[in-house]
């Protein structure tokens, strides 16, 4: 039986400094950012971390985490991260991106960053649409999914098939760790923390690129209640974007 002490992580910006989440009800970002903050505290690397804010709702990371932050244009977070890490190899470098950013406009950059084996960590929040701009279809949108740009559901013959980021990133030789988790129930949220922890560790040990794709709810754009959004992840999205660890080069070591 473990004892959990619930306190506000130091790496979360304090309320008096303007912190405090303002995401939509049921949005996954808050849980994920808090998890990241807890891990930065646990590794004691808050003051040595540079995070890259991307474009989309993920950009709010800059307002909620108490970290040095560099901004990046659409899809270029891992490039900015590469420039930082190559100059400051002792800093912990983290990109926080959505599926629109890392898997759509910036997927070329994601793949090349993985192939170069950059010692950085990417947390990609996949809510299967462009959240901030109002719920348009992204590369990860599922077949049949209704979005503002696929009002009759995504059709393969019109807009192709969903992109499975974590699986593709796992194919790159420079990737040390690639996994998909979900912000849905307690079990999955605990798995989320373990998984992100692993992705942090591969950077801290200098093993290569760490990539975590997190399925997260976007009830506002999905036109669902928060509860329905959780069910959507569990019952629908997971069947298209399955959870799992697709690459973990530390496994060989630990065996």
């Amino acid at each position, binding site marked *: 039986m473990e004892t959990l002490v619930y306190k506000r992580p130091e790496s979360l910006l304090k309320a008096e400094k303007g912190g405090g989440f303002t995401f939509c009800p049921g949005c996954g970002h808050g849980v994920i950012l808090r998890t990241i903050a807890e891990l930065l505290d646990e590794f004691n690397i808050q003051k040595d971390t540079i995070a890259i804010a991307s474009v989309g709702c993920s950009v709010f990371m800059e307002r909620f985490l108490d970290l*040095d932050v560099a901004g990046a244009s659409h899809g270029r977070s891992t490039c900015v991260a590469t420039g930082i890490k190559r100059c400051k190899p002792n800093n912990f470098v983290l990109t926080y991106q959505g599926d629109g950013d890392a898997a759509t406009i910036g997927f070329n*950059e994601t793949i090349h960053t993985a192939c170069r084996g950059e010692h950085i960590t990417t947390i990609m929040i996949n809510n299967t649409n462009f959240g901030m701009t109002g719920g348009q279809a992204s590369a990860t949108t599922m077949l049949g999914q209704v979005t503002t740009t696929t009002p009759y559901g995504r059709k393969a013959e019109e807009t192709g098939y969903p992109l499975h980021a974590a699986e593709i990133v796992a194919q790159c030789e420079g990737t040390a760790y690639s996994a998909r988790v979900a912000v849905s129930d307690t079990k999955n949220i605990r798995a989320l923390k373990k998984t992100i922890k692993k992705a942090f560790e591969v950077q801290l040990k200098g093993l290569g690129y760490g990539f975590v794709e997190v399925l997260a709810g976007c009830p506002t754009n999905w036109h669902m209640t928060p509860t329905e959004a959780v069910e959507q992840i569990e019952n629908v999205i997971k069947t298209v974007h399955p959870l799992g660890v697709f690459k973990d080069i530390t496994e060989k070591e630990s065996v």
Partner: protein
Amino acid sequence: MAKELVKGNIAIARAAINAGCQCYFGYPITPQSEIGEYMGAHLPQMGRVFVTAESELASINMVIGAGTTGAKAMTSSSSCGIALMQEALSAMCIAEVPGVIVSVMRGGPGLGNIAPSQGDYFQALKGGGNGDYKLIVLSPSTVQEAIDLTYRAFYLALKYRNPVMLLAEGMLGQMMEPAEFGEYPYKDPDVTQWALGCSHNREARNLVSLYMPEGALEAKINKIFEKYELITKNETTYEEYMLDDAKLVLTAFGTVGRIAKAAVNKAREVGMKVGLFRPVTLFPFPDKELHEVAKNTDLILDLELNKGQMLSDVRSAVFGACPVEFYGRSGGGLLSPDDIFAKIQELYEKIDNKKAAGVV
């Protein structure tokens, strides 16, 4: 240090290394690939950073990352490659991230050709990126000046926390002439007041290009434009040649500036009072200085390897003080000293005729 024979592209690369360039990010494109090749051969050996990026989009954003840490970072490319960087250049200006961009122009539009061109004056000066911003743009006309301005580019980037573009032509990149490197002559400013990295003894900070709260963006733009005024006051540089009694003044930048000088010499040999005004900094553009020149001459002839791009800045500087004519070639055609001399003869006659007729 003695002068040595050196090619323009190599001179720029070597000067960047001398200037303390810690990292180079780039993607190959003619006519400047030798810069990346030289960097690739030398930077890693020196324990510095060299990355061949997947695209120009990636390379300029890697420069941004390096720049946010206060490192001296650079990329180099040519016309269509520079086009891909415009979004990032705009972001760098508003986020106040330093960096050096070497643009060795080729023929455009499109893939164009690899012949000498100055078709990217607008791209460098008027921006393909969004919003109100300015790059500091330096324009070398000789290999020696390419070295000196590369040094200056790194210094100015850090001093003003703004991207600095060295705008050269393929001709300068490909040509060789004697030059000397000397030492990097500047004392770099402290970056610890703004650079990202270790935040143990200070508040966390950010360098971003998104300013959502009401009034925030306007305030930031006003701040960088105050800086641009300071840059104009401090850094405007130009060359004047044989202007004292000139009735006809040529304006030209980069290598066209030196070719125009040959035409001035030729005109002077036959007694024509012709001079040259060559902006070295394109931003800041020497507006006031050119205006003074215009007040004391009968005609300005602007020469460019394009359809008339700097011309708009020349006209706005002259502001009616004298007539402005344009002569240029685009798409790879060169302006030779003889071409320019022929144009000088044609216009010089007009000045004399007008004078005789009492028009001027």
